[in-house]
């Protein structure tokens, strides 16, 4: 699993969902968590953190938000060489095939459908870790 000092960015326009995700992350031992309330706020934070040599190591973002949606933030990240491999998980109330395909095409690392419980979120994080470990091993 990801080391406990992993730096997370949690993006959701609802403070309740940010609080729930932070609570689950905390239960899993992850306390280095920054919050943003939509993609338009999150994107500069991602760039600033990278520029200051303290990059985010995992982004968990809602899909359906005002200003910049989660899927658009994901596309911004994947279009930028610095964030092509940044683990990025979308949390969404939508679980229709076309959305899942759009997210996969855009390069999402994993996808969590609301409502979810802590067990599901933990499993999704583990799946991303497994993918990251495999691609790191292949690159080595």
């Amino acid at each position, binding site marked *: 699993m990801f080391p406990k000092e992993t730096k997370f960015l949690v993006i959701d*326009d*609802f*403070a*309740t*969902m940010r*609080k*729930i995700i932070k*609570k689950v992350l905390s239960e899993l031992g992850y306390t280095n968590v920054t919050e943003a309330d939509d993609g338009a706020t999150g994107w500069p934070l991602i760039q600033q953190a990278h520029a200051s040599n303290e990059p985010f190591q995992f982004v968990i973002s809602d899909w*359906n938000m*005002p200003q910049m949606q989660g899927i658009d933030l994901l596309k911004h990240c994947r279009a930028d060489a610095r964030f092509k491999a940044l683990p990025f998980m979308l949390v*969404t*109330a*939508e*679980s*229709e095939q076309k959305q899942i395909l759009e997210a996969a095409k855009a390069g999402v690392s994993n996808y969590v*459908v*609301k*409502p*979810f*419980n802590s067990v599901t979120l933990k499993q999704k994080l583990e799946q991303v870790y497994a993918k990251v470990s495999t691609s790191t091993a292949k690159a080595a």
Partner: protein
Amino acid sequence: MGAPKLEGHPLFEKKTIEAFIKGIQDTLGTMASTTVKNGRPHIENHFEMKGDVAAIVGLVAPPLKGNFIISFTKQAMLQIYKNMLGEEPGEINSEVKDAIGEIANMVYGSSKTLLNQDGYNFQMALPTVVLGEYFPAKDHQGVTLVIPFSFENDQQLFVQITVNT
């Protein structure tokens, strides 16, 4: 006054009602560990907000248009908030209102997924939260589908569906 004219409206069909019931039960069961029982869905001739605090989502499933309203009595919402986050704010503050919006978002999203698998074309929308009286636009004030729900100690919440006439 005669029977409501929209009783056969697509938004009032059995599968629509079942999708919203499942959406409520899944959302509150998963996120708040709360078992919610539905009462008898029924149609009322005029819209009247049932709970003290509500979230409203505009329903758009071309050519259908309406409103999805989830409302809670004050005590019911405070209990759900406690069950979700382990906190007891004691009043309907901005954090509790935010939670109602997120609950509406999840219920609508999961119901929408079920309905769209059944051939509808519901689109995602952002919820609006209101405290106290709510007066929808005039074309949403008529016939309303009401689904009552209850959980521990007879706490109550309601789903109301209005259609654009």
